[in-house]
């Protein structure tokens, strides 16, 4: 019997077989090992945070190219669109705004580009600002690839509602919305084309502020004057418009990016300068799609809140967190008169939103000329 063993099972035969085995083994072994270090069976508790930033490593890397985007979230804080004013025969002011829809790729977090639909090439669209009682005329042209409209949150006729059948504009078309500026407050406008969800989350929205006319509110005239853009009282106030938005970059019905004024972490990297002696007034609008609510939380301080901005006395006093459902908005007023100078955080108090970009810093300083 032993005779046939070498014949049937030659050394080469076994070797050829073993080579196949060895091949697989070697292939598996060839993948490089880079992280060889002794005793690393413990989790990392000592990771140093980068650059001493208030957010440590929890921040998007890099910078968004504002010039390429054509808008700067910081500049948008105070960039009011007041349109052009003329007089109607009856003496009333007629304020005309021009809006156009255009498709545009925008950078919403460093390196990530979003195929947005915009008003006037920016997201959020221009922050329209008018005065209570004026006649408003909004000339809207659609240079985009889909039907769009402008639907104002305000008081107007059915024909001016900017919904399918009333003020919907086909690509290449134009429509003029006309109505009176009522009620005063902090409002918004957005596209009401269908499907609504997509038209909103693609970027078609903006703030729409109607300042109170002091003459109509003798009982609280000083407050109304402070709210009216351009008055000496108003110039003392540091006013900012913040539109809380989000972007679903992979279209799975869940936002990858949250921000105020579009760019994630912008105000973490570029804190907003605040003169601590002067009042801060924030026009806050929530247009976040897909999530039921958004919120605003101020660190180390409290504020008064005017829900919808339609009152001259606060609807909530001395709070440090408010929440808004989609399209809800309001005015926040606070100051830092006795605070020491320094960085004060503000962010959504849904930690997820904050960590995905909706957070920022106020740089409170002694005085800014």
């Amino acid at each position: 019997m032993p005779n046939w063993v070498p014949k049937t099972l030659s050394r080469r035969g076994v070797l050829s077989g073993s080579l196949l085995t060895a091949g697989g083994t070697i292939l598996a072994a060839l993948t490089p090992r880079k992280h060889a270090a002794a005793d690393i069976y413990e989790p990392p508790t000592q990771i140093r945070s980068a650059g001493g930033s208030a957010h440590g490593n929890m921040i998007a890397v890099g910078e968004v190219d504002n010039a390429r985007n054509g808008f700067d979230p910081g500049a948008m804080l105070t960039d009011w669109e007041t349109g052009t004013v003329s007089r109607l025969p009856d003496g009333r002011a007629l304020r005309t705004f021009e809006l156009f829809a255009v498709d545009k790729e925008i950078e919403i977090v460093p390196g990530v580009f979003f195929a947005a639909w915009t008003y006037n090439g920016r997201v959020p669209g221009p922050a329209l600002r008018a005065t209570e009682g004026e006649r408003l005329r909004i000339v809207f042209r659609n240079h985009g690839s889909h039907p769009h409209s402008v639907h104002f949150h305000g008081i107007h006729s059915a024909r001016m509602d900017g919904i399918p059948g009333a003020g919907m504009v086909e690509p290449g078309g134009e429509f003029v919305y006309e109505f009176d500026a009522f009620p005063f407050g902090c409002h918004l406008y957005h596209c009401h084309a269908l499907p609504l969800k997509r038209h909103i989350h693609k970027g078609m929205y903006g703030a729409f502020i109607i300042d109170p006319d002091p003459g109509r509110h003798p009982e609280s005239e000083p407050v109304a004057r402070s709210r009216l853009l351009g008055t000496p009282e108003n110039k003392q106030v540091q006013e900012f418009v913040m539109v809380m938005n989000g972007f679903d970059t992979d279209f799975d019905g869940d936002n990858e990016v949250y921000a105020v004024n579009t760019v994630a972490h912008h105000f973490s990297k570029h804190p907003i300068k605040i003169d601590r002696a002067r009042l801060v007034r924030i026009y806050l609008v929530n247009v976040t799609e897909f999530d039921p609510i958004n919120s605003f939380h101020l660190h180390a301080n409290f504020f008064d809140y005017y829900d919808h901005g339609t009152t001259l006395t606060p609807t909530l006093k001395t709070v440090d967190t408010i929440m808004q459902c989609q399209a809800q908005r309001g005015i926040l007023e606070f100051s830092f008169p006795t605070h020491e100078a320094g960085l004060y955080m503000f962010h959504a108090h849904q930690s997820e939103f904050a960590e995905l970009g909706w957070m920022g810093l106020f740089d409170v300083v002694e005085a800014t000329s």
Partner: protein
Amino acid sequence: MNGEIPPAAPSPAETASGRSRTIANLLWFALPLLALLLASGWLVTSDWLKAFDAGAPPVEKLTFERVVLNRDGIHLKVRVGGSEPVSIAQIQVDEAYWTFTQEPTGQLNHLSSAWLHIPYPWVLGEKHEVKVVSRTGATFTKEIEVAVATPTVQIGQLVPQAMLGAFVGIVPVLIGMLFYPAIRNVGRRGLDFVLALTIGLLVYLLVDSFKEAIELALTTAAAFQGIVMVVIAAVIAFLALLSVGRRHGAPTGIALATYIALGIGLHNLGEGLAIGAAFATGVAGLGTFLVLGFTLHNVTEGIGIVAPLAPARPPIAVFAGLALLAGGPAIVGIWLGSFSYAPQWTALALAIGVGAILQVIVEVGAYLMRSAARSSRTWLSPAMLVGLVLGIGVMYATAMLVKV
């Protein structure tokens, strides 16, 4: 007239014509290549393909090949599987943007890979989700089911791992081999029954290995064509082993036993990889029960290996060698598997195992058919069927103990 014909020395004209024929032949070979070159050149320069450009962003594909957790945070090896290049813009860990470095930096082209280093303070034993956001906003998600530090090569760990490998690989095979004296005494029909049992267990291993290979293949970059790779590797391994094994006729005896041991060894390599990876990534705790399950599962393999040896009386060293061949790869597998590894290599190793197992199924089957033909019996007798089903059934039942 029938004078001496001069030796057939080629005339200069003939030589020249032969040479020109060779050159002509070479030219004919060059012609299709030239045509290909021209076609490619035209395609590149004329750019008429842009007629198909719908203006939509490209569909990007990114696969995660390795995950390493250590004191510095989370490290991922990613590979671009689609034809479109991918620019990694941001990384979210557990729905928070996190700083990271990419190595090498820049856009990742077709099939190229990079390491992403994220200084994230992961939490021992908990789940994390890493989401890579590309330039176009597309996202690619890697779930880390249970965070534990990735083991590195440590001499201290090699020995216990080898012990574990021996216990799930070599020990059960040796125990199974102890049936050898019994098998020798069961007679011809009893032996055929045991061989049918062997085929049954091999069929189980074949299906199991194939399933594992396909599962892994599905996680690899698209360009690797995972399933195709697995099938082709298995077919080539099968044919190679079959031809090697049959150079001197169909293998029997020790040769057949060796091929069985080889096939089982390759399967155990995959099993070792799975065990190693499961423990390294924390998805399974190493329990005594589990190890015992593997031991029990693999005892049948020992019986299968020694069954063809019944007519022979090989020296004890042959048994030792066969046990090592069949069980040893489990040790290697656990060593390799405990590091984070790229799935395509494991899928390839498993696919080769599939081919090897198929080869021994064919050889044992052929042996049984020959044996049946000699005694003019049908090869698939009721007894054989029972053996076959029993082999599959025992493997299936014992595998229930060990599916991690």
